[in-house]
């Protein structure tokens, strides 16, 4: 449950009655990409997390070293921001460059980008869900944290056993055991096949070699799409059993642990910046962005309290605010403003990425003041700076697409309350319809469930893209790239969905060189610290106040419910998590000292 803490973080450990609060931290958090630490205070009497702080231990400085470089290098450089979804950055950068250079790729080029990006979603969600998150739900983990739940799982028949072949919920959990579980290994294998699909389109995973502003260098032949399609159909067959299996597993948690919906629950504040351009409509002109944004095959949108506030990419763009809050940077207020008005004449805020300056100020970590390298992106709705989260990507994407009710390509169809995914016949399984319904909560289980469904959604979209690409090639349109010139002055912005959520790139060109470049990936949104107004970031907010269901007492406590919540957001920062107890009580032989208290 959401609860904003008023108490300063760095206060002394509370003694006596308040001594029920035990400090616990996990740094580094493993099984994510990057470095994240989570620091908490837990009340073991009420079984609740009282406070939570999220910190990142790495600074690299992209916005700084990109200054003065050739703008055409930006997708090569920004791809290196992320080692699991770098291609999303490369794609987003090409979108921003297309806008700045006034170029649109040939339709075929755009279908190829969509196919590459679809493969990335299929790969990345798959490996993350089954090989990283799945371990939190595997036999070994459940036995160590909730032996009672394990016993119940052994007795519980899996409702969809007829489809996926695992008789009980315990059998599903066993199949998720690291390395020895058969589903764990099958998923690893699928993660490679989908990366082959990716490499067919974008050359090299994860930093593509064939993406350029103006299109792609990929040589489009019939064979290229045959190679992709055959692999895609095998993946679709895999999804037909994977989705019902995960439904069984996740539903079981609600059943076995009444109240589990409270875990990771937060106010529904979701952002999605849209994904997969439709080349029939997208001309990359800012002036037309509201229209072509709504034609994307994943609809952009901001969702507040369950309802859609906007689907307009121009609104989304103008609402972005970067607050410093508790991070290690100096404020840029009063600095040079690069863009005062957007191409439509709307005023652009000083705290908008187009006008941001990045001024690092390395300093000691202090939970009373500044404690992370992550800034706080927020979305201004005209009244408040909302701490939107991405829920790890899929939940926001499906929610926005369902509610906007704009997408209908047969293979996927929005209905207003749900998204239908229609998968054709495969080798061993008949035609299958899957339906993701807008859930009641934005919580840990629903974030994880949406991930499974979105894998199927991406695969279904890919079918549409292959058909369109093949039509182009069959009609003799094999051009994949449009020439362009770099202007002396220009601005651009790109919006897409990185695998784990919203991604924007903002570019300003002066004298033919990069004057300002600010990428905003999902993790700053999710992992942000308390901002300048004291509003905690989404991880902090979701963990803070959540109940604890783990059966272990403090000295063997693993924090599994907290780990599940943090991982449900699909954190992706070079970050991690340690574990220690406050009040001088040591859990492990070696432990990090009480980081939330100033050392005496």
């Amino acid at each position: 449950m959401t609860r904003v803490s008023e108490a300063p973080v760095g206060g002394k450990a509370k003694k006596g009655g308040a001594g029920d609060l035990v400090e616990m931290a996990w740094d580094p958090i493993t099984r994510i990409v990057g470095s994240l630490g989570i620091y908490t205070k837990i009340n073991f009497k009420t079984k609740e997390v009282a406070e939570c702080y999220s910190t990142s231990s790495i600074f690299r400085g992209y916005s700084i070293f990109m200054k003065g470089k050739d703008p055409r290098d930006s997708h090569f450089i920004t791809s290196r921001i992320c080692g699991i979804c770098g291609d999303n950055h490369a794609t987003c950068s090409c979108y921003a460059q297309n806008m700045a250079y006034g170029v649109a790729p040939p339709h075929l080029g755009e279908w190829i980008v969509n196919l590459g990006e679809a493969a990335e979603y299929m790969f990345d969600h798959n490996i993350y869900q089954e090989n990283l998150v799945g371990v939190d739900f595997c036999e070994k983990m459940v036995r160590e944290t909730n032996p009672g739940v394990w016993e119940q799982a052994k007795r519980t028949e899996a409702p969809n056993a007829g489809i996926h072949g695992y008789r009980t919920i315990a059998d599903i959990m066993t199949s998720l055991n690291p390395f020895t579980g058969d589903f764990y290994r099958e998923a690893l294998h699928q993660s490679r096949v989908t990366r082959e699909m990716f490499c067919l389109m974008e050359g090299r995973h994860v930093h593509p070699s064939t993406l350029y502003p103006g299109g792609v260098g990929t040589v489009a032949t019939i064979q290229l799409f045959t190679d992709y399609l055959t692999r895609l159909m095998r993946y679709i067959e895999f999804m037909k059993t994977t989705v019902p299996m995960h439904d069984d597993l996740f539903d079981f948690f609600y059943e076995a642990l009444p109240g589990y919906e409270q875990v990771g629950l937060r106010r529904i504040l979701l952002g999605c910046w849209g994904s997969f351009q439709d080349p029939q409509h997208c001309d990359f002109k800012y002036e037309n962005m509201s229209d072509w944004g709504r034609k994307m095959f994943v609809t952009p949108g901001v969702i507040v309290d369950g309802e859609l506030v906007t689907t307009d990419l121009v609104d989304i763009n103008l609402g972005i605010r970067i607050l410093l809050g508790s991070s290690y940077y100096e404020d840029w207020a009063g600095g040079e403003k690069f863009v005062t008005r957007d191409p439509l004449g709307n005023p652009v805020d000083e705290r908008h990425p187009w006008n941001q300056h990045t001024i690092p100020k390395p300093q000691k970590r202090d939970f009373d003041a500044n404690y992370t390298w992550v800034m706080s992106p927020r979305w201004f709705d005209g009244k408040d700076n909302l701490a939107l989260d991405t829920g790890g990507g899929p939940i926001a994407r499906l929610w926005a697409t369902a509610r906007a009710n704009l997408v209908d390509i047969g293979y996927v169809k929005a209905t207003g309350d749900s998204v239908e995914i229609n998968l054709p016949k495969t080798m061993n399984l008949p035609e299958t319809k899957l339906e993701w319904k807008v859930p009641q909560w934005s919580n840990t289980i629903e974030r994880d469930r949406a991930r499974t469904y979105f894998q199927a959604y991406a695969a279904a979209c890919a079918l549409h893209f292959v058909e369109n690409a093949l039509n182009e090639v069959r009609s003799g349109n094999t051009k994949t790239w449009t020439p362009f010139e770099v202007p002396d002055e220009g601005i651009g912005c790109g919006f897409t969905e990185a695998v784990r959520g919203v991604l924007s790139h903002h570019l300003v060109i002066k004298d033919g060189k990069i004057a300002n470049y600010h990428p905003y990936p999902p993790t700053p949104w999710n992992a942000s610290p308390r901002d300048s107004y004291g509003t905690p970031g989404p991880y902090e907010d979701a963990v803070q106040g959540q109940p604890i269901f783990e059966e272990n007492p403090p000295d063997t406590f693993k924090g599994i419910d907290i780990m599940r919540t943090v991982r449900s957001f699909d954190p992706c920062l070079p970050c991690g998590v340690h574990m220690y107890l406050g009040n001088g009580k040591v859990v492990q032989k070696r432990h990090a000292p009480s980081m939330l208290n100033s050392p005496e």
Partner: protein
Amino acid sequence: MAADSATTEREDVDEHGQPEVDVHVLWINAGLSCDGDSVALTAATQPTIEEIALGALPGLPRVQFHWPLIDYQVGDEFMDWFWKADRGELEPFVLVVEGSIPNEAIKSEGYWAAFGNDPETGQPITTSEWLDRLAPKALAVLAAGTCATYGGIHAMQGNPTGAMGVPDFLGWNWRSKAGIPIVCVPGCPTHPDNLSETILYLLYQAAGVAPMIPLDESLRPLWLFGQTVHEGCDRAGYYEQGDFTTEYGSPKCLVKIGCWGPVVKCNVPKRGWINGIGGCPNVGGICIACTMPGFPDKFMPFMDAPPGSTVSGAASVTYGKAIRELRNFTFKTVDEEPKWRKRGTKLLTGYKPPW
């Protein structure tokens, strides 16, 4: 708890119920990196990580990975292995470093990159301190990816952190206590199989069945980086005929639109990217020289033709000669890092620190 996610699952257990392990692999991903080399390793097929972890190859020692990307353990339980190694209680271990090493000496406080906390101060422990602590105790140090090997993207001109590669940090002539130089597997990211195969080689060397790993002057495994991209590129026929494209998306030679293949040491066009699929120039992507010590600075702007390649020449003879000259001339400079990647208290990258 005994087994990690990536532990060998063979049944031998010692008197404490811990699995018997011949070699530990300690992986620090907290350099300045994108974790792309960790991710790449999960894509390897020759061999796969399962094959290494489950001992599916003959003569392989029993190995336990302590690898943040997929580790079962979290937080202190995970960090414990690094502390054990620091105390000399973990023998033997291979240290894998991912990411470039920022220069922590150019500022008065705080950290650029850290891994775990110092029990004395409660502050994060810098990645460079971990290197100082663990490198002398390691059987071998493996730098994975171009950031860790030579600095890479984060060590670009104008960077604020003074980042450098592991050999810049430890010294190019550094040797482990077993006499093994730093082993560099560059690539941005590293080719999946190049990394898994090098790990395999080191494990065999640790088991005493393979001789000293053969490395070139930039510390790269010789059998992987002995040839140029150009020598392995299936577009060389077009190059031969002087048939160069000026547009992306063509099957012809890419040298005039930014391919640096002729002077770059990398086996990707030959090996493909995953399971033989994908690559760079072979599938239509210019070679941006991501394996090279001079990457990225000496190859930017990437989309311009490399110097020398603008020499007109429809006939391959003329062009071939130009290429050879370009090679001899440029080989040396592109195989060297820019000068600012080194230790010291001054930031030499061109960035003016505000702190």
